[in-house]
């Protein structure tokens, strides 16, 4: 049962990523990070599996292409207008409609999934958040048992953590 939250701040994402690696090597998994900028270093260090968002984008994209085909071919057969002796169902202009609808639906699906999976909109800041983590510091919050706290704090300090604060854990 996690009872303690250890909040640490880093000036540099390399140090933060280093700390995450060291903690994971020490079998400590309950980690949460705050970053003022997106950092691939931290993302890689956390070793999270890929977001399922991309499957939603793919589904949206394929739905877009199918919608495009249905709309273009359907309306052409509904209103049979021969233009310049070209075949009734002519692919070149349909490609454009299918492409645009692929982008549109793929985008909308992906964007919706992104909101869904990232827990947005978040009205209350996650526990352990500090204003500095939105300015110029990278934050790392570790939840652990009282017994592990000292060991974790020493790992954090070895990785150049600027400030290490111990707090009672509040539920996420």
């Amino acid at each position, binding site marked *: 049962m996690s009872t303690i939250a250890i909040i640490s701040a880093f000036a540099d994402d390399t140090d933060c990523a280093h700390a995450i*690696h060291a903690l994971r090597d020490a079998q400590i998994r309950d980690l949460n990070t705050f970053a003022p900028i997106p950092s691939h270093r931290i993302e890689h260090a956390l*070793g999270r599996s890929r977001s399922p968002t991309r499957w939603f984008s793919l589904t949206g994209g394929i739905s877009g292409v199918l919608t495009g085909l249905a709309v273009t071919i359907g309306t052409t057969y509904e209103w049979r207008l021969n233009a310049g002796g070209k075949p009734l169902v002519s692919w*070149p202009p349909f490609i454009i409609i299918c492409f645009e609808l692929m982008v549109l639906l793929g985008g909308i699906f992906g964007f919706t999934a992104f909101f869904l999976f990232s827990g947005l909109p978040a009205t209350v800041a996650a526990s352990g958040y500090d204003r500095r983590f939105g300015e110029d510091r990278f934050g790392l919050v570790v939840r652990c048992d009282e017994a592990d706290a000292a060991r974790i704090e020493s790992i954090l300090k070895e990785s150049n953590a600027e400030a290490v604060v111990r707090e009672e854990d509040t539920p996420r």
Partner: protein
Amino acid sequence: MSTTLSAVRRDSSSTPRPVESVAGTTMQLVAGAMIALGAIAFVIALLRDDAATAWEAYLVNLLFFLGVAQGAVVASASFYLTQAKWGGSTPYRLGEAFAPFLWVGFFLFFGLYFGRAAIFPWVKHPIAQKAAWLNIPFLFARDGIGLGVMALASRAFIRISRRNDARAWTVATDDIELPPHSIRVIAPLLGVLYAVVYTLIAFDLVMSLAPVWRSTLFGWFFFAGAFWSALATMALTAVLLRKRLGANNLFTNPVVMHDFGKLVFAFSVFWVYLLFAQYIVIWYGDLPVETFFIVQRVHHMPWSPLSVACVVLIWAIPFCVLMSVRAKQTPSVLGSVAALGLVGMWLERYVLVVPSLSLDAIPFGPTQFLITIGFLGAFLISAVPGLNRVAQAATSGEPAGDLVE
């Protein structure tokens, strides 16, 4: 994949063994022999009254190899414009490696003068309305000046790019300074000149072979294709050098190979976009004066399979294969896709040029093959000093960009 932080740290702690030279006498001898073969085939074809075949191959190869050499210098300039530090100074040296061929191409361009009757249909059958533009003295003057200016501008750019301040900027990974001032002046200038001069080359040396045809987008399509062929050549060179430069050289870094893969992928899509953008307008307009150029190449045997092959090699294969990160980072995959793409781009230049001159038969045979070999030899021999600079940069152990994905 060694893309985690600890793995990268481990990798960067062991520095590569510096390599001074990868290309030397052997390559020069082989390339020299290739040039000799090409020259002999060319002369024999002229003596055997087969001038058209020889000049077609000459023009196609001139366009292809000149496009690669110039596109690569423009790629180096565009790395400065996008402030690319992902590979330290090495991608810049790689882009500049083929530049000596610009002078070879400049002189070979004037060789076309002797083949003018075989190449330009409007020499034998002048078009009165277009005579002010399509005449031999004006064509050679404007294109010659254009290519000369490009070669000079490229030389000036490369001199500045090789200076210490520019090199120091490419390896300074911890600051957000702009590149040196002189680079900021000449790099955009080179990009604009490239667009203008290579549009002119496309209009004069490709479009004028079908003198009644026109497409305003054609120049853009032509130089974007040349730019892509340069990127594919750079990726292929990186893959080929990877093994030869020993442990821990820059090209063994999967992040750097990923970046080359991204460039090959992106500009392949751009090429097909421009192809379709032209095709759709011509298809909609349905004007015989515009459609015949497409019909000859897409619906007319024996050319239609070759046209399809171009789209497969330049777009379909790179698009499907290089979509995943792992494929981009796997040298054998990236190298194969780039090599096939280069074959595709050569074929594209062939399909743009030759059907205008020989509609019902593909004149490709030993003569055209050997002339192609000759041009490849000239291209390789020009690249020898540049490739050695690439080797030195890639094994210098200099810091390079953000090496973490």
